[in-house]
């Protein structure tokens, strides 16, 4: 618990510092709960998502960073690896390929990459793609 809080605080500081470097991602921590974050990400260019802004919700577990954050789309998105109703995302790094080397910021980057390059082998939305 203490360890996860300390780590999240470091990430918070890092996010403040990186804000300018990564204009496609706006990661915001809940005012009262450091385990709740939201992110606004820009749809990648040359994809159907270009021009869109997508909102993500992060729920960070107490065992973070040994366990991955739970992330889902709050904005409706039609994508093969995202559950259309729940916004749940099928991405290996959010499941069994997670490691503490990832950060909330780099997870956002991975999700943007997933939007640009869907993985048809692990569909959550079989009608899409």
């Amino acid at each position, binding site marked *: 618990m203490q360890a996860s809080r300390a*780590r999240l605080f470091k990430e918070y500081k890092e996010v403040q510092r990186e804000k300018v470097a990564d204009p496609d991602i706006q990661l915001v921590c809940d005012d009262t709960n450091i385990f709740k974050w939201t992110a606004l990400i820009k749809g990648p260019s040359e994809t159907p998502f270009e021009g869109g802004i997508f909102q993500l919700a992060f729920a960070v577990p107490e065992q973070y960073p040994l366990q991955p954050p*739970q992330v889902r789309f709050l904005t409706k998105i039609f994508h093969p690896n995202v559950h*259309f109703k729940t916004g749940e995302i*099928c991405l290996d790094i959010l*499941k*069994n390929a997670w*490691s503490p080397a990832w950060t909330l910021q780099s997870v956002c980057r991975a999700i943007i990459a997933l939007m640009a390059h869907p993985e048809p*082998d692990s569909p959550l*939305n079989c009608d899409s793609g």
Partner: protein
Amino acid sequence: MQNHDGVQVDGEVESAASVATPEFDEWANFGDQDIMQQHSAIRAEEAEKIPFLGDKAILKSLDFEPLSSLASEYQSGSAILLEKIKVLGEQYAAIRRTRGDGNCFFRSFMFSYLEHILESQDQSEVDRIKANVEQCRKTLQSLGYADFTFEDFFALFLEQLDSVLQGNEESISHDELIRRSRDQSVSDYVVMFFRFVTSGEIRKRSEFFEPFIFGLTNATVEQFCKSSVEPMGEESDHVHITALSDALGVPIRVVYLDRSSCDNGGVSVNHHDFVPAGSEAPKASEGSEKVTPFITLLYRPGHYDLLYPK
């Protein structure tokens, strides 16, 4: 990756999709998160059966009866294995089991190394490994890892290292070392420290490791580290062992208990010493290397435990 065949999603837009709190009345609502929760429940159940690290069990050398704890697992198993266990019993006094959670190699290494320092109080070895740990830190930095992603894990290992040295305020007993090795918040952090070190070493010397990795999977070095070294619970192979041994400069002996037999019909138990690159170099002119590892692991296909020589 999971395939979500059971998930049927309507093509039409449905506005009444308020599923903030998923319920399990339908498979359609049984998402990855639930699967992961189920996994961790199963893990927790398993955890109650075997601690991260077991007690030391005595390997008694007996005439005909199978060797106590180890042999009982193989009572109806192959004769070669039973024969080998008997041979093991002549050379090794005890076994300490670790939980088969995919981290057994790293966990065995952690305990064995810290136990060795606790018993030997070898200050020069501690100084030596600290210098290597510092080198590993630089390696990760030069590979582009942000400090805050790994520094907590490094700090926790160094803390354990200092506390097994006696004579300071943080000093701990052998019992406390066992307790910490069973405490997830310490044990898993140290395991993760080793995973970072291993990954850094492999990526730093990617040309050297590439052919070995290519033999295991057809992933690139970077993919291999991301998918098979850094995530907790991913099992270790000779690539991991070589990299960790090299990075920290700690030799490791692995004793193989499998069903292979010798050509001449006699039964012997093979072992392989992982000797860190460089440590045998100074005495190369004197012939065979003189390094005897103080860490001995018993490998049975898919799992590592600790062995205690007589």
